[in-house]
């Protein structure tokens, strides 16, 4: 006598959870407050608090989490008995397309200073960036849109810009680009994702 039929019922996937779209990168002095929850998706709320938008990028913003692990092995077992995180890096990278002195400075380590001289009699207005290898820490945030259409914010309280920056001056092939690598330098428990899920009830 045959038993109950064998049933194959795979779980349903949710196409609504498949997200795409650009990320918006803001930077600020470490310790700068985030906008209120209500305003996490409002650009002017960020800029009014002192956050700076990096502007257009060549290929969007990329977030890379890269832990390296150490296996703990024993002779009696072929698989490790534990896998321990030895180091972990979190990087936010992008190639900035807007060549402003502040963007150049940020790509080049954020260690330079920009002194502005206003125009005056016999003195053209000018901005002079003085470079330095004393890289300054900053805070960064990446804002994207979640499956509800609201803001999803990755907040990293402290990052340092450290990466090779190569900019090609071409007649027509492409714009001048400033590849930027922001490395998280704060403990992981200070890094957060905030996901807005529903409007306030009143």
């Amino acid at each position, binding site marked *: 006598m045959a038993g109950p039929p064998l049933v194959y019922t795979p779980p349903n996937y949710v196409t609504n959870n498949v997200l795409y779209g650009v990320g918006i990168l803001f*930077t600020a*002095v470490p*310790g700068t407050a985030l906008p209120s929850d209500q305003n996490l998706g409002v650009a002017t709320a960020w800029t009014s608090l002192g956050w700076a938008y990096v502007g257009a990028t060549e290929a969007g913003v990329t977030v890379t989490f890269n832990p390296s692990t150490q296996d703990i092995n024993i002779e009696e077992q072929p698989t490790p008995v534990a896998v321990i995180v030895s180091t972990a890096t979190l990087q936010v990278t992008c190639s900035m397309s807007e060549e402003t002195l502040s963007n150049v*400075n940020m790509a080049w380590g954020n260690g330079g*200073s920009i002194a*502005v*001289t*206003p125009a005056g009699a016999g003195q053209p207005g000018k901005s*002079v960036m003085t470079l330095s290898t004393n890289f300054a820490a900053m805070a960064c945030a990446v804002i994207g849109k979640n499956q509800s259409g609201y803001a999803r914010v990755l907040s990293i309280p402290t990052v340092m810009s450290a990466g090779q920056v190569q900019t090609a001056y071409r007649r027509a092939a492409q714009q001048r680009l400033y590849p930027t690598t922001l490395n998280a330098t704060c403990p992981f428990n200070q890094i*957060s994702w905030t996901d807005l899920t529903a409007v306030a009830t009143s």
Partner: protein
Amino acid sequence: MTEPAKPADPAPPAPAATAPAPAPAPQAAQPATGPLSEAEQRQLSTLLARQAAVGQTGEPVRMKVTGGHSSLSYGGLTVGTEFTTVPASMVAAITEAAADAGVEITQES
């Protein structure tokens, strides 16, 4: 034999008289238990970030640019000709940057 018990009777009223004072303490300790709410976690994260940024260097100071320049930007912070609040952790760095750039900068005393 029952007489020694009598002096003990007045003792209970004494704690009863002081009971109203310690009562709020246990009530205040109750919310500290259990996991943090989402709002508390967010507040804690903000406070930790602020503490990490300020470090043990002290209070922020107010600085402004003087002389022929109208502003100096360093580390994402811009100091103009009006006093601007500078985090304590950045004061030394921005002073050094000003010196390197030949910009006069003044700290509010």
